[in-house]
Every structure is written in C-alpha cells, then in structure tokens.
C-alpha cells in the first residue's frame, strides 16, 4: 500500500473510529457511506470498545508473505462488546491457549511495513484477557 493509503486509515485503525446509523441504529466499523442494514446515509461518529470475544480462529502455518518471519500465527474473528465483528491476529499467545468464546482486548501493534523503505502501518491486534 502507498503511504497516503496507510495515512488515510490512521483514525480508524488507531482509535477504532466507527459510526452509528441515525436511522436504524446499526453500529458500523469501519465507516461507510451507506448503511448496509437500512440504506440510510446519515451517521454519528462512534468509537468501538476495545474488548470482545473470539468467535472463530485458526493458526496459520503457511502464511502471507509479509508474515513469513512470524509463522505460525493466529487469526480470529473477534466480536467486540457492542456486537461489531472484525478480523485480526491474536498475539502474545501460545496457539494452544486460543479457543472460541475466550475474551480478548485490542492492542496497538505494527501491521505491516510497506516494503524496505516505506512507512510502517500500525493498527489493532488482539490479546487474550
């Protein structure tokens, strides 16, 4: 990704900044222009909670190229306490400790480096509580 592409995501990924639909109340993260539930276009800003639980998970042994020095690693779908779901890594953990339903909190972590000379992209990952 180019530098502006990383920069553009900073508020969303650093602060978990999402929105709530003014029409149907659906909570959305990341932000969108159109509510996927009711089609409305008016929203208010809303920060997501940084705690949730694991819905489903996997330990990846043959991973993405940018993760080749960090395999195996765990990826999970996390349901935040407000019901919003995200996909991210579960870090600082022995994969055998991970299971569906376990509680996590989100932490600020490096996601990727944009090549050898590009910016480092940061965002959210999860740790077991």
């Amino acid at each position, binding site marked *: 990704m180019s530098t502006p592409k990383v920069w553009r995501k900073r508020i969303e990924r650093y602060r978990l900044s999402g929105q709530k639909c003014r029409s149907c109340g659906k909570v959305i993260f990341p932000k969108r222009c159109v509510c996927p539930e009711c089609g409305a276009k008016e929203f208010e800003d809303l920060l997501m909670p940084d705690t949730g639980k694991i819905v489903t998970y*996997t330990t990846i042994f043959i991973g993405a190229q940018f993760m080749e020095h960090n395999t195996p690693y765990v990826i999970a779908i996390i349901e935040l306490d407000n019901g919003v779901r995200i996909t991210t890594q579960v870090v600082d953990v022995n994969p055998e400790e991970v299971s*569906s339903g376990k509680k996590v909190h989100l932490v600020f972590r490096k*996601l990727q480096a944009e090549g050898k000379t590009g910016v480092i992209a940061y965002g959210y990952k999860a740790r077991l509580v």
Partner: protein
Amino acid sequence: MREVGILGIGLTRFKEHWDKSLRDLFVEAALKAFEDAKVSKIDSMYVGSMSSGLFDNQEHIGPLLADYLGVKNIPAVRVESACASGAIALRQGFIEVAAEISDVVLVGGVEKMTDCEDVTGALAAAADVENEAYFGATFPALYALMARAHMDRYGTTREQLASVSVKSHKNGANNPDAQFQRKVSLDTVLNSVMVADPLTLLECSPITDGAAAIILAPLDIVKTMKEKIVKISGSGVASDTIALHSRKDITALDAVRIAGEKAYSMAGKKPEDIDVCEVHDCFAIAELICIEELGFVQKGKSGVFTEEGNTEIGGKIPINTSGGLKAKGHPVGASGIAQAIEIYKQLTGNAGQRQVAGAKIGMSQNMGGTGASCAVHIMEVVE
C-alpha cells in the same frame, strides 16, 4: 427468452504447464471447443480470469485472446468475479444468446498461476484486502475460520472434512484431465502438512495452470448439429458481504443458497431432481457448506452425509465426479467453465470411468472469495 444449448466444449489438461503461457492455454482450449462444435467463427466471447494482472502482469486479455484465437474484431470481454469468474462468463454468454443479441458465443476461463511469485498474496486480493488480508488472513485461513465454526456448532469432525478430499481424489484418479490422478487415504489427508488449522494441505485446492471453453448457441441450432443435446435450463447469480466477519452466520454461504434458489426456480427443479453436481470445493469445508446450501443435505449434517458415502459416484448425490477443484486442480478463472464441462460430459455419457449412470440433470456451482459471489447453473438432457 430463447433457449440456450451447448454446441461444443474444450479443456486443457489441468496441471503445472511450465511450457505454456496464458494465451497458449486459452487458445488450446478454445480450438478444441471449435473442433467439437464444428464451427470456425463466433459472434462474441467472454473470458473469466481472476487475476491475470497479479498472476501474470497482463490485463486486457479479452482482445488479446481473441487476437491470438484468430477471431479479432468481435466483442471480447474479460469478466472477473474472483474464483467465480468462469461461471460468470458462462452466465454472460447465456444471457447474450438467450436475449438474441448473438447466436454463437464462446465462454471460457483461463488462469496461468505458476508464473507468479506470490500466489497466496494474489489470491488474498479476492478477500477484503483492507480489513482481512492486510491483517494477515490468507484464503486457507478464512476457510479455516468457517471450518472451526462449523465444527464448534455442528460437531463436524476433522475426519469428515478429510473424507471430502479422499472422495475427490478417488474421482480424480479416473479423470485424465485432472492434476492429481491418484487416490489418497484418510490418514494421508489428516497427516499432511497443516496449512491453517484445521485445514491440511490435502484439504486445500492446488495451484494450477489451465483453460476451459464452451461454445453456446440457440437450442434450435444445437438440435440440428448435435446428436446428444444439452440445454442450460437454469442460471442463478448472487452476492454477499466481501468480508467473512460481516456475515451473521459464519457457517452459512447465503450467496450459494440464493444463487441456487434462482437456478432451481428458472429450471423448475428441486434438489432431488439433480443427478450429479460439481460444487466449489476450494477447501474441504467449502464443499460441505455448499451441499447444505444447495439443499442436498440438511444444515449441519454434511459431514456425516459425506463420511457415509452419499456424495460418491453411486451415492445419493454424486458430488465433484471430476475430482473437484481439489484433485482436478483449480486454475481459478477456468474452474467454473471446467465444472460445467464435467456436467456436460456426464449428461452426454462421456465421463468414462466416472460416469454417473443415467444422469439427465446436472448442476455446477462456482463461487468467488469466501462466497461473496456465486453462480449456479443447471443443465438438462433434451430428449
């Protein structure tokens, strides 16, 4: 709407074709289809390719392939819907013939994957790149998330997942066009390298080069030119959220169910009417969920159903007689067309050792990403 039939088919062997390029593969399949259809020109063509750009640094392959096929100046369009690109090409050609815009239309698919340095990365582009792949999710991982959820919710076992691959390889062993023409045991599948827990290497479709082509024409023309007549009686397409995590039920594939319902409705058929079906088994769990969504088995029961042999040739509903994407190979954009070709071979009695006796009605189901797009087609023998 005019009825649409199949005039000819052509397929390359599916494997690692180190001596052939993208254009070589496509032209080989298309010329075979020309020969089978006994035509030398076409009115229009659609080619499915997931990512000729990322795999091979080449875009704009509609005109490129028409040029190399020697049919330049006709409408020639590449269509893309990730791994469903092939079936979407079939759908576009079907619409064009049905709508009486063209008479003879080639629908094809091609993928040259082995020239690519980062195939896993290119494939991940079919997911939500910003919200899934960027965080390290790969395709095997996304399907592993579904597999885990299915196991947690329905008690599906690793052995049941593995039985999908055992069955696929058993069928692939009888398919001379397949990448892997050998049987594997349950133990071999379970003990092969873990890719993304619980999915092992032998529960993941391989990296493959290949192309496939079908010539479509009005059924009235097909009746005058072919001895065995097959028509496309149903075509359904649907989409879903791009990110797996946005779906209410991780164990469901709504796009598959909806595309299936549309195809059944157009053809006036029910799941019980289908004699043979090719489903999109990019990963073992995909086949299990797809046969549930297409109505062949109750939700949550696909594991037991498969383990008991109901999806084998001779079983209640033979699934992936070709070997499926797992054993036949998965040159992404070509897979949807190759699935339809397998159904055509079954319906015309040309499936050799893997023939389903008396098959009259068949279905092919092809999906993109984690099921964010899906196309289902029903074909029937016309007596």
